[in-house]
């Protein structure tokens, strides 16, 4: 079922419905975007680079992971691999909505870019087949909020300067801890604690960035077992 199936008016109404459904999430994204923008500025990413990152990567966890390595120097590759692994869930989300997306490649790619946890979840709420217009509407609202927030934060953060003095270096672990607590179950808590210990044990032995990578690989290996 591609876009050709619907009239332009029906599409428009669906996207509007998605924009409305996504409005409150977009406000939250805007505020979080300000926080990310301020961090990005203190990590030395300019306004343009920070906004470009938010518009193209469009993923808080990936952007915090990559920016943290820029802020602390070294281990950029490790940061990128961590960002990729943290967002591997998009492969699964994308596979679920795939049959509903547009057939034309460019349009399909644009729709895929708007897949977020929230747009994906809202698009399937109360239906058997995902509603692509809702996915697009929510995704656009979130993309707008996140990108505008980043610009505001980058401007404000650039004016403030001095990341460590403002305690911005503690914002990174706080962010990852918040994500962890959102989705943690018993098994997840054990995995997180184990990975944390692996990092602490390996830190004196390996270059910065590699301990996180090693913990991720260990989880891939151990994770094959049933809970």
């Amino acid at each position: 079922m591609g876009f050709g199936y619907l009239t332009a008016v029906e599409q428009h109404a669906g996207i509007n419905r998605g924009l409305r459904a996504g409005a409150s999430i977009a406000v939250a994204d805007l505020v979080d975007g300000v926080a990310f923008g301020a961090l990005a500025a203190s990590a030395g990413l300019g306004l343009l680079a920070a906004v470009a990152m938010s518009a193209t990567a469009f993923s808080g966890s990936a952007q915090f992971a990559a920016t943290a390595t820029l802020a602390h120097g070294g281990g950029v590759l490790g940061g990128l691999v961590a960002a990729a692994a943290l967002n591997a869930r998009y492969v699964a989300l994308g596979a679920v909505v795939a049959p509903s997306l547009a057939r034309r490649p460019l349009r399909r790619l644009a729709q895929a870019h708007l897949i977020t946890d929230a747009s994906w979840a809202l698009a399937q709420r109360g239906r058997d087949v995902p509603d692509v217009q809702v996915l697009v509407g929510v995704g656009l609202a979130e993309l707008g909020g996140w990108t505008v927030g980043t610009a505001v934060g980058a401007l404000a953060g650039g004016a403030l300067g001095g990341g460590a003095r403002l305690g911005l270096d503690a914002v990174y672990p706080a962010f990852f801890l918040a994500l962890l607590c959102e989705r943690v179950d018993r098994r997840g808590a054990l995995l997180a604690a184990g990975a944390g210990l692996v990092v602490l044990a390996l830190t004196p032995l390996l270059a910065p960035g590699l301990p996180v990578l090693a913990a991720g690989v260990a989880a891939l290996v151990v994770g094959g077992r049933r809970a």
Partner: protein
Amino acid sequence: MPERIAVVVALAAICLALRAAGPFALAARGVPDALGRRLDACVPALLGALVAAQALTSGRHLAIDARVVGVGAALVAIARRAPLVVVLLAAAVATAGVRLL
């Protein structure tokens, strides 16, 4: 500067590739169960690893400093179900406060 631009471009490529993988490559088959389970295990592990690395290490050393207080403040905010931005602010303010002392 070039390193930063490379990171922005690489991150864009990574995120778009991950989002496009399902719609373009796995549309018919879906993600195999065994791989899905392994990837699911990766998320909490990586988050735990990142918390440890960002809160308790500095370069190649273990370090207990003002960040620990910030993370503690964040944990209190999380336990009180505060919005994400309040959690982040709590961490920054507590850490900056300790450094002022």
